């Protein structure tokens, strides 16, 4: 019996013991076909999903290799059913292919006639295809290329898209590698994408995804539409492109809530594209505003559902997705695969580790007990009022004061959701309050003061923390606020709490009211933090002292 680092479970999860001497090798070898699901201290969990297997197939791995890898590292016998399942699943990818036929245009070709029979019988496929040319060939309406891929994936027969792409409007873009050079893995990532045609590159935060994008743009040498999560990110992209490529300010446009510029390289936010006026997406024309040669999707795991719908219509354009993880909260991984493309590159784990999935900060949850009067009020409140009641308990203010005392001399951010609570805290702590109503100029002044240390405590609302990049903050205290996406949460946390230059530990406190919905949300968050490898503690407010 071998003594490998990996245990293969019958539910298709893989448990990896991180302290095992072979753990790193195993991690590298399973990465192509298994998604990291959680990474707490000692045992990491990966999951083998059909998509992960198809991604592996698209990257040129075969079932035999996957099975060999499992057998090599597995401590116990791998469940037979799982092995069969892996082989069967992988075998399904590429039995159907989308091709450009010299005479018939876009066609669906089957290497296996019964498979074609099966899918053509589906009611969902029928309206997307045209005439049957012969046993294994059927015409596809060019406008349905994306939709067909989605449907075929749902039927369990993902098609390989070899139908090619339009070149788009040429626009030379050069990388200016002076004083810096593209790292090897960045170059590999860009090349893998280019050879694959379309697809997703998975790189951890800070591993230089923007540069991979820039390299891909240089390869395409064509007009490019870049879709990003928010305005801050749009500006970062713009700055980085100006610094690293031959592009000038005139060639880069920003298409956001604030500005509507369409230039050879246009950076648009997801938000503006999904804005609806009278039920109509009013900015969709952007997608056809130019003959784009490349469309870049930043943070694919956050891509909103409507964008997928638009993406289905532009399957003839090259698409590059950039992300740190393929795992989505909403389960739309299928659409990423069908519409953006398979995973083309995955960073070696060492990079991720260096990036600090390993806890850079100490997270603490402080529990306050509601006084009897408030408990009664809470119990009798309407469900939608409860969260607010629990979040805004005056007892939290005392805790914040205690924490400030404990971290005297450090720069502290107090984050909350409810404005009256924040105003009260601002008054109590004698600190300025930044909310959505604060003007950009005012914000910038306050942030600058915080950076220089002139200001030691800042109270900010959730709205404000969208544009938050304050690595100087050594302590963050969250008094209220739910988190939308847990992924986003971890990234934001990491951004606020960068390891300090002097090696001090950063601290993240969440103050929650025990026995309330507030605590329930906290439990959810804790689990996620722990799964990401952050260590955290729970203390009672009484024991803070």
């Amino acid at each position, binding site marked *: 019996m071998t003594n490998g680092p990996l245990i293969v479970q019958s539910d298709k999860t893989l448990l990896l013991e991180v302290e095992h001497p072979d753990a790193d090798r195993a991690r590298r070898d399973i990465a192509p076909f298994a998604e990291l699901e959680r990474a707490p201290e000692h045992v990491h969990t990966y999951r083998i999903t059909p998509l992960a297997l198809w991604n592996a197939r698209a990257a040129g791995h075969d079932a035999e290799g996957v099975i060999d890898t499992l057998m090599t590292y597995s401590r116990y016998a791998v469940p037979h059913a799982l092995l069969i399942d892996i082989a069967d699943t992988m075998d399904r990818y590429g039995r159907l292919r989308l091709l450009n036929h010299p005479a018939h245009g876009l066609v669906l070709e089957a290497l296996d006639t019964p498979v074609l029979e099966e899918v053509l019988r589906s009611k969902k496929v029928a309206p997307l295809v045209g005439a049957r040319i012969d046993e294994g060939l059927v015409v596809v309406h060019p406008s349905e290329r994306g939709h067909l891929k989605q449907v075929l994936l749902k039927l369990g027969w993902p098609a390989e898209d070899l139908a090619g792409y339009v070149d788009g409007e040429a626009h030379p873009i050069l990388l200016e590698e002076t004083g810096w050079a593209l790292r090897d893995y960045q170059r590999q990532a860009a090349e893998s994408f280019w050879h694959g045609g379309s697809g997703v590159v998975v790189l951890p935060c800070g591993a230089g995804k923007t540069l991979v994008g820039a390299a891909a743009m240089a390869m395409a040498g064509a007009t490019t539409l870049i879709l990003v999560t928010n305005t801050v990110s749009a500006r970062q992209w713009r700055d980085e492109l100006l610094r690293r490529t031959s592009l000038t300010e005139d060639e880069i446009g920003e298409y956001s809530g604030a500005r509507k510029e369409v230039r050879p390289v246009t950076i648009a936010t997801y938000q503006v594209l999904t804005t609806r006026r009278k039920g109509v997406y009013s900015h969709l024309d952007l997608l056809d505003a130019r003959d784009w040669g490349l469309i870049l999707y930043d943070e694919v795991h956050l891509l909103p559902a409507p964008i997928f719908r638009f993406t289905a219509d532009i399957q003839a354009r090259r698409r590059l997705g950039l992300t740190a993880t393929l795992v989505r909260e909403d389960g739309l991984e299928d659409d990423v695969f069908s519409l953006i493309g398979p995973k083309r590159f995955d960073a070696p784990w060492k990079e991720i580790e260096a990036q600090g999935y390993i806890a850079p900060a100490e997270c603490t949850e402080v529990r306050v007990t509601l006084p009897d009067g408030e408990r009664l009020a809470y119990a009798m409140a309407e469900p939608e009022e409860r969260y607010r009641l629990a979040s805004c308990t005056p007892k939290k203010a005392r805790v914040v004061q205690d924490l400030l005392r404990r971290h005297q001399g450090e720069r502290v951010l107090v984050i909350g959701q409810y404005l009256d609570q924040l105003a009260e805290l601002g008054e109590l702590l004698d600190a300025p309050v930044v909310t959505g109503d604060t003007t950009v100029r005012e914000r910038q002044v306050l942030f600058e003061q915080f950076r220089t240390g002139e200001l030691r405590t800042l109270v900010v609302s959730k709205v404000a923390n969208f544009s938050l990049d304050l690595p100087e903050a050594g302590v963050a205290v969250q008094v209220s606020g739910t988190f939308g996406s847990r992924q986003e949460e971890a990234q934001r946390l990491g951004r606020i709490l960068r390891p300090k230059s002097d090696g001090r530990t950063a601290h993240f406190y969440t103050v929650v009211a025990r026995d309330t919905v507030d605590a329930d949300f906290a439990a959810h968050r804790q689990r996620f933090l722990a799964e990401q490898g952050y260590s955290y503690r*729970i203390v009672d407010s009484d024991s803070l002292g």
Partner: protein
Amino acid sequence: MTSPPRNRSLADDLRRRDQAALASLLRDRVDLISPTPDSISEVASRAATTASVRMALHRLDRRALSVAWGVAAAGTSDASAVAAALGAPGDADESWARMIDEGLAELYRLGLMWRDSTNLRPVRALIDVVPAVVADPRPVSPDPLPVAPGRSFSPELIDRFAGQQGLVAVQTVRELLRSLEAEPLGLTREGTVAIRELAARASTLGLAESALAMWLELGWSAGLLGPSAGGEELLPTVAGEVWRTAPGPQAWPVLLQAWWFADRDWSAFDRAEGVRPYVFGIAHVSNQLPELRRQWVELASEGGTAAVLNLAELLAERRPLADAARLSQLASALAVEAEMLGVTGRGALSEMGRALPPVATEVDPGDPQPELALVECAARMVPEEIETIVVQGDLTIVAPGPLAPGIAASIGAFADIESTGGAAVYRLSVASVEEALDRGWSAEQILAILQDHSRVPIPQPVAYLITDTAARHGRIRVGSAAGFVSTEDAAALELVLTALAKAGIPATRLAETVAVSHHPPHQLVGAIRAAGVAATAHDPSAADGLATPVRVAPPPRPPAPVGGVDPARVAALAAVLTATGTPTEAKDLPPAPEVPRMHSAQVQAALAAALVPGRRMWLRYADNAGSDRSYLVQPVHLAGGVCEALDVGQGRSRRFAMSRIVGVVQA
């Protein structure tokens, strides 16, 4: 050398066969022993009927069936005539001769032919039935279909796979029992499991419905689980509780034995078409399955260290008259089951698969004792169970290997299992810890288990969760009671409690003026009134608040899964039948001893112990007139309140009602 005695009939021939040959015949033609025949003549006359012959033909493989057809067509057992009838080429080779020889031997073994002095003769019905049953008699080839082996693996690898899988099977059933204990599965009035209940439990346990159906029914026939006294719920049995804590190598064979005799097709739960099966129902019962399973394993063993790829075809060759599509369905279902139970590893028969007894005694429900040989074999294959765990900050507990049952049960008491396989992942939550606290665990005990077994320090949030949950536990208590007593007057309640205590009805005072009891209202009212205090039964749902007592009859006990043919019974019957037909004169019988009167349980036990071929007992039996008589008997089978036995004096088998047997003693 004397010439063999001339048989004039099948009955004569059968009478001259030895016990083993007769048992072999009866085992494969079970219609002959149901109802139990009282003599060889009766066996022979049943065997000669067209219905029975027709059934027997279903037992023949392709080659023997061809020979049967050849015999019927040629009207003789002469080898060359049969060969000619089958259209063998003129220069027919060795293989034709072998096929015909073997075929004739099989037809003889099954009593479809008999031997006069020199010749084999078909029974009349054979000649009539074969042409009607067999459409195309001509063999494609006189040779048996060769085995098509798949990829070969080392025996170590196969056994590693199988042993692992065996342990996973054990863990699955352990977890199933745990779940039944925590929350019994409801049974319908018919004693089956409702579709929705099955689906819900399957999803809770993370099993396919067909798999859960299989484990439930195997658990039942192994005596690990069964219905509650009222029959409305499914619970682990005492034996199940014991089994749960047994180490893997002892627990695994119990499941295997249950599977070995099972007669259910669980793949029916996966099929959309056909009758919807219910767990513990009968829609998926197929009495051919135990036999098919044996054939399947026998054929699988021919693959050696490789899986046999053409098992369905090979089975079809064995059973040419069966529905080939159905057979292929069953063959793939068996392949899945065999892999799940570790009978095979990567498709090839494991050492355990080979160790399955070719002929075994029936497993006694309620006493799941596996055969020693299987346990020894299992011990060599099952990976070692560990007692170490890893406790992590995300509130998971990972056992990086198969967990020993004791510690697994402990952890399962306060954490929910999330993933199974080679290892196990448990998740702690407020709910899971509360559940443990409800069952009497303390925070200290839970922490002690974790500390004693964890390889790493316990993360603070884990310790916090446990102590915090414990600190809040029990603030609000909820319980059940069958009845309550409420009054405006505390002193009156005092009086009532005294009265109830005297009547032997325990009641607990919850508050000044309220007490509860596990006894229903009508009993409480009775007891209180008996003490001279006025009391009224109160039913808040009734219009006037006064109750009308309703009595509910318990639903019938669900039918137990049907077992296969008990080989021991066949052997005993063969022994008895070879002795029938020769009545012993009363004067030749040994003198009847004094048989003492016994309790019915003692009678049952004594007879059960005597179910050994050849053992004779004296029965004291109350006859119709009510007076006792002694019989010298040789017991064959105990079932349904009846003891089948050879009545030595009469020289025939007969059925004795258990209720009338008043005593037994060994002869």
